[in-house]
């Protein structure tokens, strides 16, 4: 097991932070039925950095993970409330302010970050530790009041109970005394059989506000005196604003000013619609740009050439695949290519900025509050302390809001306007100015042993990295999942060919696995068929050493009745992968008639260790799987003359409801510590799908999206 769950918690985590905890945007909502907010009968008491208890018995979790639909505003308090022995209906959740006391323990360098399916995965034990510390303090406070020893007290449903006679003291009444005690070292944690909330499919937090439209996303924020901005950024990456004529735009009602920037232009108006309308009237020209003249054809050709002809940096080399492949007369080889992908969250990028003297406040949905604060501070050339970032729920993100490009834009425009400004990216700007999942080519060459199992494999991927090569090492955000490929192959070499290209790239749901799992799960399928083996049996034989992967594979096989006869024109495909300390497998059933593809059914199985909230696990697996599905079917960002061609949902499509297959999801209860869940459903879907198409048609899809292929 690669998981690192033993953390040295910062001592500060257990203490009250000076001015920290109460400073953030108040997003407290109740769970259960009431949605009225806190009715305080006295000031809340801060027990430690994560927990506040009020005299009215409400308990607030300061939540270190940002919500973008993945359910952390539910799962995180569930963990905490369980270990604290609190009632679910007394728990509130509030987003953590900028403070490294909330840094994700999974980060190599401390940072508050919501990415890499790292929230439940890495906060599971620390949250339990802070809750256990708080519970212990409450117990000691009660024991002191009763004049008994702490061992004579137990806790349940928000009360400390005296064992001898069942007398009770509520957490609310004990909070003040408890907060004055020193936290003990390593108070014991519950054993899993004592969990009361962990493992329950509690309803998601904020659902009330999501069904009546009252949940406030960044795009909905309104401040007194706030102006609105519409934005046009140079279509060619790295281009610059050359000239503009604002005379017509200024005539539009409500328009206040035009803000020229180095590589963009914005219109500021009293209303967004006025700004957007006027923006179309600005006569603007951009010039130059690093991507000028570039097209996706050239990019694909370049990547193919890199993967097929260069060795690149070797990042795993077991055995001597090179010699074996050179000596073999029967090398099986092929090249795979996947396109750039946009994030295209349903909520387009939006950000609000307000500057006052030396201070700056920003309202944003971000996966990285630190990056936002630091970048804005750098941009304004002021200390980070002068920046306040208010975070709110995101209408999707999938890796898009990890940088700080939107915050800086908003600050730059607000600065020019001399008023608070909300900037909204039009859908077109959002799609054309993303940090794209990189286009990647992969070339494999393999030989089989006498039984038909892989003996040697050479796999090289060529792509545009998210940063320069660090000391000759391959970028883990691109190769990460390759080096831990679980198939038992005696001789393997993985190579990484890095190309330079000015198209901005970034993390997309499941990061490196979004492409590498497609390559590895496709090529294994190719080899199985080449050898005349059943693709399921082939995998079974090769992953014996990864029992948790084997278990999910067996489960989808069973549930899909793998191996039973299907109607003419139908086919089943299978794929599986470890992903962020979880294990996932899918069986997809498709049919192809007269070139028309129908995806009938998808069966998923996941082992994510302890499923904190099984219903959210199912939601996430299915949602991520569907994202993998429509990306594989339809999505490609193409470049023409240095600019992105696609612009909106008509040419960058999501799934239409009638394309939706029947879906079934099964959870394997391994009882291990929690793995990730938000991204786990994405990577293996594409290969399961193309493997199914192969089974139905004999056509091997080596480039995505599938819509680019004739399937007859």
């Amino acid at each position, binding site marked *: 097991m690669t998981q690192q769950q033993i953390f040295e918690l910062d001592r500060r985590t257990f203490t009250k932070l000076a001015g920290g905890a109460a400073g953030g945007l108040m997003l407290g909502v109740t769970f259960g039925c009431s949605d009225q907010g806190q009715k305080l009968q006295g000031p809340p008491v801060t027990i430690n950095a994560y927990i506040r208890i009020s005299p009215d018995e409400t308990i607030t979790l300061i939540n270190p993970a940002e*919500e973008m*639909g*993945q*359910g952390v505003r539910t799962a995180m308090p569930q963990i905490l409330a369980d270990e604290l022995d609190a009632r679910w209906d007394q728990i509130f959740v509030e987003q953590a302010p900028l403070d490294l006391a909330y840094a994700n323990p999974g980060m190599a360098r401390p940072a508050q970050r919501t990415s890499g399916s790292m929230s439940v995965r890495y906060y599971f034990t620390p949250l339990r530790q802070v809750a256990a510390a708080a519970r212990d303090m409450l117990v000691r406070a009660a024991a002191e009041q009763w004049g008994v020893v702490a061992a004579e007290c137990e806790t349940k449903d928000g009360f400390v109970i005296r064992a001898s006679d069942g007398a009770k003291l509520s957490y609310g009444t004990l909070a003040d005394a408890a907060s004055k005690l020193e936290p003990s070292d390593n108070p014991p944690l519950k054993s899993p059989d004592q969990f009361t909330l962990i493992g329950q499919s509690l*309803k*998601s937090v*904020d*659902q*009330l*506000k*999501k*069904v*009546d*439209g*009252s*949940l*406030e*996303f960044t*795009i*909905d924020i*309104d401040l007194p005196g706030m102006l*609105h901005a519409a934005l046009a950024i140079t279509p060619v990456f790295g281009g610059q604003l050359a000239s503009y004529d604002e005379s017509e735009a200024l005539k*539009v*009602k409500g328009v206040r000013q035009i803000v020229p920037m180095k590589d963009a232009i914005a219109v500021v108006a009293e*209303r*967004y*619609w*006025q700004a957007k*309308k006027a923006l179309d009237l600005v006569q603007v020209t951009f010039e130059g740009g690093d991507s000028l003249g570039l097209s996706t054809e050239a990019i694909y050709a370049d990547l193919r050439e890199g993967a097929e002809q260069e060795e690149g940096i070797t990042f795993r080399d077991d055995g001597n695949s090179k010699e074996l492949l050179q000596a073999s007369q029967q090398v099986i080889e092929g090249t795979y290519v996947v396109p750039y992908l946009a994030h*295209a*969250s*349903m*909520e*387009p990028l939006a950000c609000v900025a307000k500057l006052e003297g030396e201070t700056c406040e920003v309202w944003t949905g971000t996966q990285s509050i630190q990056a936002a604060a630091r970048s804005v501070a750098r941009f304004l050339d002021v200390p980070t302390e002068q920046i306040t970032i208010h975070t709110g*729920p*995101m*209408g*999707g993100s*999938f890796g898009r809001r990890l940088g700080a490009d939107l915050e800086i834009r908003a600050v730059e425009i607000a600065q020019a306007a001399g008023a608070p400004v909300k900037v*909204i990216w*039009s*859908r077109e700007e959002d799609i054309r100015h993303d940090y794209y999942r990189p286009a990647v080519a992969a070339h494999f060459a393999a030989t089989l042993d006498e039984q038909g199992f892989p003996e040697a494999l050479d796999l090289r991927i060529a792509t545009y990295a998210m940063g320069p090569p660090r000391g000759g090492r391959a970028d883990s955000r691109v190769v990460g999942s390759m080096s831990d490929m679980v198939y038992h192959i005696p001789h393997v070499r993985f190579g990484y060919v890095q190309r330079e290209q000015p198209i901005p790239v970034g993390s997309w749901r499941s990061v490196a696995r979004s492409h590498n799992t497609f390559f590895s799960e496709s090529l294994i399928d190719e080899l199985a068929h080449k050898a005349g083996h059943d693709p399921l049996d082939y995998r079974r034989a090769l992953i014996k050493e990864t029992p948790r992967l084997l278990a999910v594979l067996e489960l989808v096989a069973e549930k899909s009745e793998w191996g039973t006869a299907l109607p003419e024109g139908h086919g089943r495909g299978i794929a599986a992968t470890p992903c962020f300390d979880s294990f996932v497998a899918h069986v997809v059933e498709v049919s192809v008639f007269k070139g028309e593809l129908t995806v009938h059914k998808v069966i998923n199985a996941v082992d994510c260790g302890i499923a904190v909230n099984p*219903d959210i696990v199912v*939601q996430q697996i*299915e*949602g*991520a*799987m*569907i*994202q993998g599905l429509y990306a594989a079917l339809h999505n490609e960002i193409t470049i023409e003359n240095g600019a992105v061609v696609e612009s*909106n*949902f*008509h040419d960058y499509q*999501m*799934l*239409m*409801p*009638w394309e*939706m297959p029947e*879906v079934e999801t099964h959870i394997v209860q391994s009882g291990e510590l929690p793995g990730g869940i938000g991204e786990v459903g994405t990577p293996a879907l594409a290969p399961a799908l193309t493997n199914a198409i192969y089974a139905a048609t004999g056509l091997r899809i080596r480039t995505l999206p599938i819509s680019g292929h004739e399937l007859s």
Partner: protein
Amino acid sequence: MEFTIKVNGASQVVDVDPDTPLLWVIREELGLTGTKYSCGIAACGACTVHVDGEATRSCVLPIEFVGQSEITTIEGLSSDRSHPVQQAWLEIDVPQCGYCQSGQIMAAAALLEENPNPSDEEIKETVTNLCRCGTYNRVLKGIKRAAELKATA
């Protein structure tokens, strides 16, 4: 230009350019932000409201064509989340990020007014709202459940 429109049962006077889409009038003039912008080209349904009971993508409907139609937004669907679609949504826990959900709910509610017992096929052809988080199957289940709740109400 001044327009008097009827939104959620009340008359409202707004002063906007005639080409302003209903979406932006609702969001910016009336402050009803439950109706969302996502594509602006009638491709996603995030901006769905009822215009005289019909599910309408408000991002492409200029205010000058609204006239005296009765507009209903998510805020006016019920005052207490008691609409069967909202109830079913809570029961099935449909939303993920939630951003598309006002539009989904409005489209579903309009469908059920017209067709109290829609088949899966009818649902898929009528409620064509997009969801980047992939809640499609729960939307379907939610509409079926709402139909039941409505029938027994």
